[in-house]
């Protein structure tokens, strides 16, 4: 019985590691000042799993979610949440026009190939994450960033297999670093 439990535990560990290896790598992340606030540039490295590519190619939209957290550590209490942002990116295929569409909010871009769309997806540029940088205190802040496939927004039938199958999983680990907002470079206009 105990041996079985150990075996199961190891199996779970392996699968988790494997999932991480297949996931999204967060590359270079830059935070810079722009106007009053802060904007974020980030590079991600990932490939769609064959299953996901198949799903997209069949016209089913998939959603990516970029999450940004900025906290100020406090030794006496919970960390103060300085800023928190979510970005939702929708990737879909329009069969009639044979185009891939990448949309974020009202903004929409169309691409002739999947690779073009993915290239844009992999390069996040000028994402305003903090509206008013002046409101931030002059101290070290913790920044965390990750990108993942939002399985909750997949069509329902896929959600079940998303629970069990790794093919529908695409997720990065939290990329964490410290930053002093006041010391960030301000992009010249």
């Amino acid at each position: 019985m105990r041996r079985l439990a150990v075996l199961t535990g190891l199996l779970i560990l392996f699968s988790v590691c494997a999932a991480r290896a297949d996931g999204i790598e967060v590359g270079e992340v830059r935070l810079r000042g722009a106007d009053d606030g802060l904007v974020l540039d980030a590079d991600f490295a990932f490939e769609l799993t064959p299953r996901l590519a198949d799903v997209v190619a069949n016209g089913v939209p998939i959603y990516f979610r970029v999450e940004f957290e900025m906290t100020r550590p406090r030794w006496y209490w919970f960390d103060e949440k300085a800023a928190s942002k979510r970005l939702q990116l929708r990737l879909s295929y329009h069969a009639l026009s044979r185009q891939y569409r990448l949309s974020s909010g009202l903004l929409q871009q169309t691409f002739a190939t999947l690779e073009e769309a993915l290239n844009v997806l992999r390069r996040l540029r000028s994402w305003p994450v903090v509206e008013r940088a002046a409101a931030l205190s002059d101290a070290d802040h913790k920044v965390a960033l990750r990108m993942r496939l939002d399985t909750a927004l997949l069509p329902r039938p896929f959600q079940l297999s998303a629970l069990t199958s790794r093919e529908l999983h695409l997720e990065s680990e939290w990329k964490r670093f410290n930053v002093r907002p006041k010391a960030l470079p301000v992009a010249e206009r």
Partner: protein
Amino acid sequence: MKVLVLIAGVVAAVVLFLLATASGETTLLAQHYPLLLGLNATLALLFAVLVSYQLAVMVRRYRARVFGTRLMLRLLTRFAALAVLPGIIVYAVSVQFITRSIESWFDVKVDAALEGGISLGQQVIDQMTVDLQSKARAMAQELADRSQPQAVAQLERLRAQAGVQEAVLVTASGRPLATASEDTSTLVPDLPAPQALRQARANRGFAVVDSTAGRPLSLRVIVPVAASGFGGEERFLQLRSSVPPNFAGSAEAVEAAYRDYRELSLAREELRSIYIVTLSFALLLALFVAVAVAVTQSRLLADPIATLAQAMQAVTRGDFSRQAEVTSRDELGVLTESFNSMTRQLEEARRVVETNRAALEGANARLENILAHLSAGVLVFDHDRRLAITNHGASAIAGEELEDFAQRMREQFEQHGGKAWQTELQLRTTGKTVHARGAPLPHATGGGYVVAFDDVTQLIQAQRATAWAEVARRMAHEIRNPLTPIQLSAERLEMKLAEHLSREDAETLHRSTATIVNQVAALKAMVDDFANYARLPRPELMQLDLNALVDDVLELYQHSRVPIAKRLDAALPPVWADGAQIRQVIHNLVQNAQDSLDNVAAEPRPAAGAAPSIEVRTELVGDRARLAVSDNGGGFPEELMARIFEPYVTTKPRGTGLGLAMVKKIVDEHQGSVAIENRPSRGASVSVLLPLAKAA
């Protein structure tokens, strides 16, 4: 446990319903699908634990052979089977059905139709693009020959001619030179992107479908316009044309259907999984609820039965105090109630039986007691005439002869053929007279025979003695009275007639008269004897030295013809007797012996070599004193032995025969006994047993 099962069942139903709804179309619940799935799984696990706990408890009870578990297990199995089998059948059918249904959605024809629709749309759009491109090239041709201002002026005309919605002439850098639009409200034209211009320059043309969501599908074509004359700047013409709304709508509808279809097609495995998972959960929960309910129900049914059975076992052991508890008002309750009343009746019956048995035992003991203390003898034979019961009285009367006596009783029964009888008979050894009455016992009590008998020897003797006393008294009275007148008359006759008669006659008269007087005197003596016998006074009992009395009496016989030997026991204690009467006894016995010897002497041939002798002896026998008078005379004739003590029974030529009768009467009055026997050699012996004086 029941409440727990109920609550769990309700929760399971709710969650299952939600899951089923989520599996359907509602988007609200669809978001929480994983949560619901988890909830169901947890619940199923919970139920599994609950059910396995119940089953484990039951198995433990079964192993421990708790009474009623077997029944409960059987009921449980039945109930569970009743719920599980249909569940599994419905599940199997549903899964099969769903699999088939989902597969049936994806028809090759539908697939091909949708593909064809999309392909048709694409071809139409391609065709329209080609059209637009050729129009653009024609326009570019025309514009190329014109100067800049002319071209600007011509653009609107050319646009209207070609029937496109918008035409824009831009420089290579993208700056608009001229614009013409069907829709005059839009002032700012949709300019081509630099990238598109680059491609147009490189490929001598560029075409794209604008498919921005929310806006009608439109086509955009960019072609280079040849420079007018040498050194002229390169220009580009962009034409935009909307796809006809009818076509666009249809195409979009086909596209949406195609997308949905593809989505479903892609997700068919997942869809099947969802339904199967939902169904499986439904099955699992239903099974668990069914089993849990079955356990509870079977317990509900089996518990009263087990209680009843335990009570029954208690009754089997004889414990009637156990009353089964009535828990329900159904047939089981009625059964329990009847069982209880039956137990009460049993207990009542047992108590009655107990009482009866005690009464019977008491009666038996009493009967036995009575039988034991009865002086009469009682013999009970069974139906085979075997001796079953004898009482103490029977042994006392019959003594060693009991078996022989019983045999005679059997013969009596045989003679009388099972009817009641009574008879008098004599015991062979002791000669006792016994009055016996026999009667068959009723068949109802098992048959058999009963004999009651009594020793009536004493009674008969007493009756005889009383009769003789009466005879003697009468005789004394009736005979004595005339004797005196007879005597006086005879004497008067002699006196009156003697002097008137001759001497011879006087002599005859004198002799006759003397004879009459003598005979009357003898008659008188005899009558006196009878009177004495009849009027024997009550003995005045006192302490008496028997030896002294014997000495005193024998003094008178010192000079008799036959010598009398005395063998007296010097240590004989005094007896309780009347001296005068015992004296009479001794006289009578000794005279009897003398008379007996006289008879022998009178016989023609006296016994040779035996001098006549009499012996008187006293001795202590048990708690009695014995006085024995023996002789070596002729003894008593055997035929007289039984009646020897009756008056007028005598062996002597003379004598009234009252001697031994007198002895017997006196001894009886003294609570003593008399026995006579003929001695083995010769002669007879009479022994008298007298009670000793009580130690004062």
